[in-house]
């Protein structure tokens, strides 16, 4: 079965091939098409193919050459797909205001004179302005960095320089920072609970350890949706937590626990805590049990033995767990969507909004690309850490 002959090698490849093929089609290809959406801008090149062919010859500074103008007129004559024309006008108008009326007038002129050259400046004075020609020429480039720049709140000005968007139009950096912030708070909360929890689980034996581990595994096995629904029930205004606190007389009116940041952090900490506890637990298990008594016998008080022996040794587990929690947290969608308010939505919600709510694939793709790169980078660090651990033993 495990021969390394050519036949065995081929057999092994044949066994993994179906899954490789499946993931190539249904996993890799979708990610590639998402990345492509982030940089593609196909409308102009599809609507104005002749213009696209000559646009590269123009330096964008001098007056637009005659052949560019003629190519554009020929393109307008050839276009018969009204949907495509509408998309192209919208695309041009988003780059340069005024194209909607300009194109309406130009199309009428082109229809009236189906042959020969037309003096476009005579049709509309705006065609004498190089900015409009620049927008036409730029729109024929099938690739764009517009969405990626907009995802980070930048844009290109008329001369192509990259500049920051005005403050009132820049929401994405704030959401990216918020995503990282919520991820960090959840990671810290998980570490603060997870480290002592794992230490406690290692320090006890028998049913106590089983109970502690079971309490971590049960939520891990339970549907994420059920856990989120459960927190919804607990945190709501007439929820169990508020009712209990009020009947104990600790508070006189319900605390706002849901549709805010606190609720999101509580629910996400609950959901992600197992990913912190389990790596720390497995690291702690591998620490020889006689180290702490050894430290004590050498005269270290318990707190000192903890700080100097156990904590440094368990740090690797904390780092692994933190990476895992943080990486998962920044991609979360369901919990913030159901427990959070409008001010607690993370990058995934914005991506979903662009993709489902407004069919803006370019922005969805650009923000998705940022999230994907961040996640894969964190995963690479995590993989390196666990490989070190496996190799170091």
């Amino acid at each position, binding site marked *: *079965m*495990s*021969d*390394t*002959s050519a036949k*065995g*090698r081929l057999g*092994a*490849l044949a*066994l*993994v091939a*179906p*899954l*490789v093929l*499946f*993931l190539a089609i*249904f*996993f890799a*290809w*979708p*990610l590639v*098409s*998402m990345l492509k959406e982030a940089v593609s801008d196909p409308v102009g090149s599809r609507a104005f193919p002749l213009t696209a062919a000559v646009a590269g010859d123009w330096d964008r500074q001098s007056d637009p050459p005659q052949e560019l103008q003629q190519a554009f007129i020929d393109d307008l004559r050839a276009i018969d797909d009204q949907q495509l024309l509408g998309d192209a006008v919208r695309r041009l108008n988003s780059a340069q205001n005024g194209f909607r009326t300009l194109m309406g007038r130009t199309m009428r002129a082109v229809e009236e004179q189906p042959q020969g050259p037309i003096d476009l400046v005579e049709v509309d004075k705006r065609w004498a302005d190089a900015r409009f020609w620049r927008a036409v020429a730029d729109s024929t480039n099938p690739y764009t960095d517009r969405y990626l720049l907009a995802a980070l709140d930048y844009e290109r000005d008329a001369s192509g320089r990259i500049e920051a968007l005005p403050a009132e139009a820049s929401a994405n950096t704030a959401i990216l920072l918020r995503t990282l912030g919520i991820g960090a708070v959840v990671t810290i909360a998980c570490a603060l609970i997870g480290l002592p*929890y794992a230490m*406690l689980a290692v*320090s006890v034996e028998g049913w106590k350890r089983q109970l*502690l581990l079971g*309490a971590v595994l*049960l939520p891990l*096995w339970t*549907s*994420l*949706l*059920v856990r989120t*629904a*459960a927190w*919804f*029930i*607990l945190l*709501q205004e*007439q*929820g169990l937590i508020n*009712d209990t606190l009020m009947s104990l007389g600790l508070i006189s009116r319900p605390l706002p626990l849901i549709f805010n940041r606190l609720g999101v952090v509580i629910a996400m900490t609950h959901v992600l805590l197992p990913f912190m506890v389990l790596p720390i637990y497995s690291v702690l298990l591998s620490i020889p049990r006689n180290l702490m008594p050894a430290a004590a016998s050498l005269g270290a008080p*318990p707190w000192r033995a903890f700080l100097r022996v156990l904590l440094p040794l368990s740090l690797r587990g904390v780092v692994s767990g933190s990476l895992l929690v943080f990486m998962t947290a920044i*991609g979360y*969608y*369901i919990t913030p969507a*159901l427990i959070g308010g409008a001010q607690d939505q993370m990058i*995934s919600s914005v*991506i*979903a909004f662009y*993709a*489902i709510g407004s069919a803006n*694939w370019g922005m969805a*793709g650009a923000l998705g690309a940022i*999230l*994907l790169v961040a*996640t*894969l980078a964190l*995963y690479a660090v995590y993989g390196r850490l666990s490989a070190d651990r496996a190799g170091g033993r």
Partner: protein
Amino acid sequence: MRAANLVKLLFGVLAVVFLVAPLVAILPLAFTSSVFLTYPIPGYSMRWFNELANANVWRMSIINSLIIGTGTTLLAGTLGTLAALGLRNAGLILPGLFRTAFLLPMVVPAVVLGVGMQVFFVHLGLANSYAGVIAAHSVVAVPFVVVSVTASLAGIDRRVERAAASLGAAPFTVFRRVTLPLALPGILSGAVFAFATSLDEVVLTLFVAGPNQRTLARQMFSSIRENISPAIAAAAFLFIIGTLLIAAVALLVRRRTERLKQQVVEV
């Protein structure tokens, strides 16, 4: 020392309560007779389970979840098991690369994958189809199958297979009569994980499924969002019971493996 123990006990109890209490708290609400998802419960009834069984949206979503879950289990189970068998073969080139590639779907954020699938499935003609949803769920379920089957294959003593081969069994016979029965528990628990993953999947479903492929999880998601009712608690109850059943199956399977291995050792 006693104070330290008390702190430990208190922390342990609080942490366990934090982890488990939400899951316990939602269960009784499945049996409430009220239309509100709040305590105290005025009376007990099965009305919300009736709602799940009889209201069209809920019934359809349960049926859809079963169809899509079964499809995902078969597809991801087959692909994952074959791949795990291939990974075990020492002759495979670049095993580390393949292993990493097979685990990547667990890492990529669901929303990112969802956007890509939505764009791509339209080109493929798979948008709003059962096949599309099953393919999407299989992508995220297959790592669990690979991990589970790989683990159970790693536990098989190679000498048993070599003994069978040396006694004249053809490679396929060795596989069918020796490897497969020993790996079966891992394959089954992988299949269970695949089904559970499909059952719980919301985000990809949101992107690739049409109104006709609305699953139970998807239905729960939108009803928590739009019109929260105890039907959610009843659905959650079914999920938790399902989880306990899955855990029981996993436990039984592990027992069985250990017994099988015991037998092999004794032989």
